[in-house]
Every structure is written in structure tokens, then in C-alpha cells.
């Protein structure tokens, strides 16, 4: 097993465990915003798409696939965060009277 694969597997296992423990504590009231927020966060794959698209030596096909990938994941980033915040803004406590 190469050193990079080994460290990647460690990172994956620990991140999955961290995710499990953190998400378990999320109030069921917020399960929809949770799904929309984790989806926006996993759209961090945009950085991979940027690297693939921006590499100077790429063939046309790689650039086309990369550009579609950047567009799709960036929609996910922008839309995901905006929609999550729009939902969370509506959760209010009773106005004190």
C-alpha cells in the first residue's frame, strides 16, 4: 500500500466517524437544512474540477468534461449554501412579548 493511499484511508475513516458523531447531534428539526448543507460542503469537489480544467496541457475532451464539472459543482456550492441559509433564517424562537 502506497503511503498516500494509507494516509487517505485514515483521513476517510476518521472524517466519516467525525461526521457520524457530529450529525447524530443535529436536531431533527434541521434535517432538511442538514442535507442541503452537507451537499454544499461535499461540492468542495469543485477544487478537483478546477485543477482538471485549468491544467495547461489538457486535451479538448478533458477541458470540456472539466468545464461541465466546474459548472455543476459550483451550482451545488452557490445554490446549496444560499438555500440552506434561506431555510435556517425561517427558524425563529417565539417573539418575546
Amino acid at each position, binding site marked *: 500500500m502506497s503511503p498516500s493511499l494509507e494516509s487517505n484511508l485514515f483521513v476517510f475513516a476518521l472524517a466519516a466517524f467525525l*461526521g457520524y458523531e457530529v450529525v447524530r447531534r443535529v436536531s431533527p428539526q434541521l434535517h432538511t437544512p442538514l442535507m442541503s448543507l452537507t451537499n454544499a460542503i461535499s461540492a468542495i*469537489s469543485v477544487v478537483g474540477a478546477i485543477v482538471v480544467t485549468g491544467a495547461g496541457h489538457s486535451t479538448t475532451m478533458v477541458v470540456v468534461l472539466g468545464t461541465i464539472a466546474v459548472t455543476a459543482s459550483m451550482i451545488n456550492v452557490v445554490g446549496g449554501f444560499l438555500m440552506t441559509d434561506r431555510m435556517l433564517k425561517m427558524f425563529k424562537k417565539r417573539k418575546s412579548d
Partner: protein
Amino acid sequence: MNLLLSIMGVAAAGRLLPHHAAMPADVILIYLAAAMLFALSLKWLSSPKTARWGVLAGEIGMAAAIIATLFLPEVRNYIWILIAFGIAIMAAIPMALLIPMTAVPQQIALFHAFGALAAALVGTAEYYAHGSSMQTSTLIAIGFESLLGYLTFTGSLVAAGKLQEILPTQPMTYPFQNVLSISILAASVIAGAMVVVVPGNVVVFPIFIALCLLFGIMLILPIGGGDMPTVIALLNSYAGLSASAMGFVLNNKLLIIGGALEGSSGFILSMIMCKAMNRSFINVLFGQVQAAKAAKSDDIYGGNIKSVNAEEVAAILDGARRVAIVPGYGLAVAQAQHAVGQLFELLESRSIDVQFGIHPVAGRMPGHMNVLLAEANIPYDHLMEMDRINPEFENMDVVIVNGANDVVNPDARDNPNSPIAGMPILNVDKAGTVIVIKRSLSPGFAGIPNPLFAAKNCLMFFADGKKAVLDTIAELEKL
């Protein structure tokens, strides 16, 4: 590092090196900070009080990571990236800000499709760029990335189509469906294995892609509308795992972490949904729905149904001190959440205590009902989850059930022979009076009659979920 250097490196070292090596230290530190912000973001989501800070943390982490990536030395060609950013921002803003809250589930399904497509396409691009010189472990990661990415892409599109009711929401079944689905999955896995064993083969990879796309459709098409909360959660998990696999391919730990967080979140949510319906994953994905035995409903309902009108309901509510409202899927369909919000305000202004009892599968995705009620200005401390409100029902004078059926069916608790036996329910039948707002006595998703409707303390208010509430408000205001 460019391709030429990479090939020279391979030749010099006499072994295969990863193509994306040696990231500058400052970028690594920014990625590390972003990973921590992502974890913090989910932690702050634990309560509505801090949740918006969570979004901000996620946004800062994301922005920092994207900007740092744009400054990587290997990113040289900006024109297509900027064009893609422009298109994405113009497309995403109306999607996120204009969509009605009832349509959030299909919007999230679309976001899953976009995220999964991105992961799958990057995997494909990487394969075509470097596939013939990749290590076996990287090829395996590309296999997972493509399988999960492409199946989540088509699966999410089908789910969005069902939620938007472009596609039929009934389960679409045909003979040998499971045999066919599993054969296609097996064929995809075999094609994926061939991609790993004979890298650089130009014929195998497109076949692999086509099989994964097809399997996504076959997996979701047979699943009915009632199981959508589980399906969306499962696709959420797959979308995350495909992003994580992409991190293995590109040797990028930030991607691995971001994807793993979504992967475990989707996994937890789908487990909660399965538990709330007392079903297993396998049963949701491959279980055929049993034919409805509607014939027996006459024995249960015959002569025992008491019907009420708005005036009578208003009089009952006027005399109550504690009221619970149990909203279901039908409330979202009738768009009755704002009317219910008005009823809440009116009752509270008359010192009647009102709580909402929310079953985990109410709505079309996990937590959907809470979002709809929050939009109708109901304070979140009045939105009670099932386990918290169940012991309270016996102290409630009146329970109003609006658009829910199976989740308040006492057979699930009392009748071990019922098809939904063991499914956790809201014990509304323990309350003083139960008022069920429903168009007719038609069965819910489970296709079975509900003995609650014939119970001594139950009154049926046959009307549209929104009109019934508005009429009741009008009658209450006369009192």
C-alpha cells in the same frame, strides 16, 4: 506538476507516481483550515440558535479553498473556469432563492445530481488523461467515483422527477425487476473491474459509464413516493461518497473529508427514515409493495364514522386548553402550512397551548415538515419530534390531524398482523378528542384502513386540508 515532468519522474523513479503531487504548503494549510471549518459548520447545525453560524463557517471554508486552488501553480488556464463560474452563479441563485419551500426536496435532489455528475466527470477526465499510467488503487478509486457518481446522477434526476410529479409517483414495477436491476449492477461491477485490470482500454470505460447511468434509473424508478425521504437520504450519502472517492483519485484530503461528512450524514438520515417506517434498506430498495386490502375497510368504518363541520370544530377548539396539531404529507400537498400558521396564532392569542407533533417521515424528505412550518412563522420550540410529544398526547384536549394517515394508525402499535406492525406512530388516539382533516376515507401509502377514524374519540372533518383550516379560523373568529 505537468504531465511531462510527471512522466520523467515515473521513468526516473522506476515506478508510478501520483499525478497530482507536491501541493504548496500554504495551500495545504488553507485546505486544513477549510476542513476544520466544515466540521465546525456541522457542529453548529446542532441547534437552530447557532445554525446560521454553521452556514457562514462552511461558506468561508469553501471560499478559501476555491481561491487557494485558483492560485495553484498547475492551474494555468482560467478562461473555462471563469465561464463555468459565471454560468453556475447565474443558474444557482434563482434555483436557491425562488424555489417554493414545498419544492425543496426536488431541488435538493437536483443538487445531488449536479454534485454527483461533477465527481463522475472529473473521474472520467482523469481516466482519459492518465488512465494508462495509473496505480491500481487509483483505478479502483476511479471505479467507485464513477459508479457512485453516475448512478447518483441519474437516480437523483429520477427522484427529482417523481417529487415534481413529472414522473409517476406510484412504484413502477414489472416482472423480474429485481433480477434485471441486480444483473445490471453486476454488469457495472464487472465492467468496473475490467477498467481496473485493463487500464487505457477505450471500449470498456464508456460501457461502464452507460451501465452505471442505467443502474441509477433502474434503482429509483420502482420506488414509490412514500419512500422518497429514505431515497433522498440514500442519494445524499452516495453523492458524498463519490466526492470522497474523487479525493482518493486526486490525492486531495479536503475532498475526502468533505465527501465523508456528507456520506455519513446521508447514511444516518436514511437509517432514521428506515427506522421511522420500520423497514430495512433492502426492503425500501428492492421490496415490492403489497396489494392494498381495501375490502376490509367496510368492517372497520361501517357505521362508526362521525363527521363534523368547521363550526363544530371551532366550538371544540374554543373549549380546549391544550391542542396538538399533527401535520402530514397531505398538508404539504394542500399547501396548508400558512393557514395552519394562522390557526396557531389565533389559538395562542386565546391562551390555548398549541404544540406540533412531527413524525420523522412527515413531508417528502427528512425534516421537510419543520421547514414548512417554520416558513409559516411557527416558533421552532413548538415543533416537537415524535419521542418528545408521544407522552404528552394523553394530556391533550384536542389533536388535529391534517394530511397524515399511516403515521397515526394505532394498528401499527396494537395489531401484530398489520402490514405496518412495529412502525413507530404518533399516539394521537390517547388524546381527549381527535379531529382528522382528510378529503375522504381513502388509505395512505400503506394502502390499509385506519381504525383511528372509527374510534369513539375521533371526528372526521372531510375537506381539503387548507380550506378546512381557513373555515375553522373564520368560525372561531365569530365566537
